[in-house]
């Protein structure tokens, strides 16, 4: 399996990244090298192996469904790049 420039462009779009032409070339080469190295895993027969998503056998963690106080709005807004009346402000979504 090998990654083309079109694949790199598609993945960058999914990842919400704009890449320069130079970055596209570099990442194409480097991702190909890394994924080629990852092909190594195919040497192993894992048909009967269960995947490990978590090393400890944890079950779901629940708490009582009770309301708790949250952060004051002005605190939450403290790091916002742009805000208005206690809301995060972004450019218009609709034309």
């Amino acid at each position, binding site marked *: 399996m090998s990654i083309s420039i079109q694949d790199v462009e598609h993945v960058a779009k999914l990842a919400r990244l704009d890449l320069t032409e130079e970055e596209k070339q570099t990442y194409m080469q480097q991702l190909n090298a*890394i994924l080629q190295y*990852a092909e190594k895993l195919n040497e192993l027969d894992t048909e009967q192996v269960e995947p*490990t998503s978590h090393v400890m056998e944890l079950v779901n963690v629940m708490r009582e469904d009770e309301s708790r106080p949250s952060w004051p709005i002005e605190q939450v807004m403290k790091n916002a790049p742009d805000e208005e009346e206690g809301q995060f402000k972004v450019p218009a979504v609709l034309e």
Partner: protein
Amino acid sequence: MSLFDMKLQDIHAKLADKQLKVSELVDEAFARIGQVDTQIGAFLTLAEEQARAEAESLDEQLAAGGERGLLFGLPMGIKDNIVTEGLRTTCASKFLDNYQPIYHATVMEKLKAAQAVTIGKLNMDEFAMGGSNENSAYHPVRNPWSTDHVPGGSSGGSAAAVAAGEVYFALGSDTGGSIRQPAAYCGVVGLKPTYGLISRFGLVAFASSLDQIGPLTKNVEDTAYVLQAIAGHDEKDSTSARVDIPDYVSSLNGDVKGLRLAVPKEYMGEGIQPGVRDAVKAAIARLESMGATVEEVSMPHTDYAIATYYLLASSEASSNLARFDGVRYGVRSDKADSLLEVYHRSRSEGFGSEVKRRIMLGTYALSSGYYDAYYLKAQKVRTLIKQDFDKVFEQYDAILSPTAPTTAFKIGEQVSDPLTMYMNDACTIPVSLAGVPAISVPCGLADGLPVGLQIIGKHFDETMVLRIAHAYEQAGDWADRRPAL
């Protein structure tokens, strides 16, 4: 002798006898930083005013006869991916250049309760991605043993600050070896605890199933004290373990007699620099002469760990870093005219090249059509790697290996070659995938640079790992060696 070369208990005895004040400790930290940090570059942000005020208040408490906390008055440095209320937290990324957290990470609350004093925030690889600290968006960190060399990554600032005597201890985070490898390169002690032992609440997530906070100190006993202060269940972290916390300090009995230790042949093979192999072999022989039984074992899936790790860690990273969108915090590009452009431009301008590379790799591995071939496959191989550890631990108390295949390499030497760089973590990554605890202790020098011995234990068996490390440290000649800065 500098106060920073003293043991915690001796410092506390001096404080209790009124021979020493916390303010003097804090003064010494800032004086040392002023003296050496232009050469080292360990700090990104200093908390001078806050630290001095805290020191004064602790001195007043002591004068009034108040109780001393476990880490009373000790100057500490915090890796800059652990959030600190009111103190800038950047993850060494331009994206968070102006980020002022409004809350403390749980470990910070615990350290505050133990009365340690925050000196500042330590440099790292951007978002903890890297093995050399060259990926910081600000400046690289230099190894105190030789400033031409890297300190290791991603907790390079934490390891270098401790090695250079700028702080008494530091916190780092370890995803694939990011505490242990820099500890080895800088000649200090670094512990990655069992996954889930320490709360990750307030640690900026890189790969959530692997990340773990841990201490870097100059000796094993101090590591036990810091661990004591920060371990324990936290309801704010759903992956936090509910286990009883033992007394780590009293487990350091200096005795390894009768312990059964395993050395996997896969960790001592080709790729291990000869000087590193010699130092580790000598350390193993020392433990044997102290009464431990050492046997060679095989962990056959070791060779698959790096590929497994980079697929899993990058996938989790691409998902975790999706929250950096320029809307709620961090930088927002001023060139964006639409919401989609806010996302694209803010991320493209804010992230450095290693972070983008991992986001790209992770997004690809999780994308439609490739999930089974890469992500699921890696999760299955992770099971096999974990089983290797389970099998060895049926018969042995701990596993020994080098911490890193080589000593610290030169700055700039590997930066354009991600695959070679990833190999630096070959000895630490399998441990992270299995979620077991491991410590790196200094075990000598090769070509004038420090070598680390890695001691790996069963899940939640930190007492065993610390006990062996401490016994070795007491018997060895390496614990008091310091770089000539």
